[in-house]
């Protein structure tokens, strides 16, 4: 099957930078996957995302989205295919009302008004924000703003949704709601929507199908979340969050306790302690 996103030997350097932000990155993302990209600040995660929809241009190498080359000639096709939601919910509003904002992308694509009247409520319905269609975006909570931003992207029916640290400015509730929303969208749209989420949030990354680790512009690994998160040593070395159960294991080990060597979920770890205690 043709990958939805393919990077072939891509490098990118910012002007005047001593080090390239991405070095010889080759990577394929399969259609319909939910892929989390993790890495410390400055690892090249956002650069990676911005290259996909031609906000940045590779210094060398090539990128395709759904088989279409990402270049000057195809930039508008690419941007129809790839929708992006950024970190700061306050930076992405243009409309006076929530509905206007969702319509903005459609206006740019000269969608007839009658069509827009169907698409906009549909998109808002998907993110459960239709009750807010006539509201001013500025008066919404952070989580609501991000949901509207997702609706604006969905209205254009992209094949790839990129979330560039889209939950990092939300409170814990807003964050959980947003992860739940992506789950629902994935269930509803299935293989029609590929999600790429760039994140520091371990719960968000753990819900993905695949996790990509970037470090100093280089690809360090691509695997299932349970494999990536079981290597606590590597996560620590790369300055990344370590799952709670693994943190606890390390603390117990430091106190001379013999701990299970395989990967443990939080529940698994609790079960282990309970059993040890009941044997005494």
């Amino acid at each position, binding site marked *: 099957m043709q990958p939805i996103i393919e990077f072939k030997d891509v490098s990118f350097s910012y002007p*005047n930078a001593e080090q390239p932000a991405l070095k010889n990155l080759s990577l394929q993302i399969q259609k319909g996957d939910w892929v989390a990209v993790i*890495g*410390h*600040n*400055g690892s090249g995660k956002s650069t990676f995302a911005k290259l996909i929809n031609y906000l940045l241009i590779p210094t060398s190498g090539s990128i395709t989205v759904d088989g279409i080359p990402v270049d000057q000639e195809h930039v508008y096709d690419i941007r129809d295919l790839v929708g992006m939601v950024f*970190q*700061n919910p306050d930076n992405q509003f243009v409309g006076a009302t929530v509905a206007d904002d969702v319509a903005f992308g459609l206006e740019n694509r000269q969608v007839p008004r009658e069509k827009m009247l169907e698409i906009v409520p549909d998109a808002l319905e998907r993110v459960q924000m239709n009750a807010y269609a006539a509201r001013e975006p500025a008066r919404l*909570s*952070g*989580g609501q703003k991000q949901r509207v931003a997702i609706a604006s992207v969905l209205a254009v029916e992209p094949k790839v949704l990129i979330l560039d*640290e889209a939950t*990092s*400015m939300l*409170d*814990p*509730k*807003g964050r959980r709601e947003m992860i739940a929303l992506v789950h629902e969208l994935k269930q509803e749209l299935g293989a029609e929507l590929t999600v790429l989420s760039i994140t*520091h949030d371990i719960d968000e990354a753990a819900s993905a199908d695949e996790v990509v680790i970037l470090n100093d512009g280089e690809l360090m690994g691509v695997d299932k979340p349970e494999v990536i998160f079981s290597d606590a040593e590597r996560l620590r070395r790369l*300055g*990344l*969050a*370590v799952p*709670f159960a693994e*943190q*606890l294991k390390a*603390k*117990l080990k*430091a*106190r*001379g*306790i*013999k701990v299970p060597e395989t990967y443990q979920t*939080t529940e698994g*770890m*609790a079960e282990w*302690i*309970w059993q*040890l*205690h009941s044997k*005494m």
Partner: protein
Amino acid sequence: MAITFKNVGFTYQAGTPFATPALYDVNFNIPDHSFTAVIGHTGSGKSTMVQLLDGLELPTDGEITIGSATITAATKRKTLNGMRHDIGMVFQFPEAQLFEQTVLADVMFGPMNYGMSKAEAEIAAKAALALVQMPESSYEASPFDLSGGQMRRVAIAGVIAMEPEILILDEPTAGLDPAGQADLMALFANLQKERDLTVILITHQMEFVGQYADNVLVFDAGSVVKTGTPAEIFADSDWLRQKQLDVPAATQFSDYLEAKGLPLHGALDLDQLADEIVGLIGGPTHE
């Protein structure tokens, strides 16, 4: 510097048709040199309280005392300017406020604005930059060529250089990677000791509350609904969940094992939890 809120209320655009009440009957006391965490879900009134504390708004009702000064609805705005000098405010994403040509000039701007001479400001700025662990080689660089984490440190140094007695931090670690977050929190804890500051931390991250705070204020629906030590606050996780707040992961885990019948006592961080578990399963096991 101690802070007291007594029956404080605040309404945005009071006396107009757009009047929006935001705080009701807020009462609390922040002891001198304490590390106080302020928690509450979005829209609970935390930020409005901070605006009052920083003298950006005057209370509609009640009385605020900061050190020996008192603020009420009748206080002249001009008096507030003098008080603001004692309060260092680190807003969310403070790196957005950087503007100068060099790192050193940016950090010197605040103290000079409050009347320090250029020479004094330079000494204060260099001391502040050293405290946030910025290397001397960066002083003449443009702040815009730094990494995000470094830019944030420079912005924080700009606040510290004004030598405030109270430091207010609004979600200071948002957007940083886990290692960067831990570094920054350790830096604040160290800063509090070195400069003997009163620190007020507004955060959603309960791990940091459990780890660093000695005093917690819980905001809900425009008022303070609970105050206490982290141990007291996190003792009732059901109540916190009703307020849309979390407990630290260590406390959650401890509660879960306690519900299964193990004698644990709601540890606040991983070290406490690990110690309790070791006690429970009988110390080091060597097989």
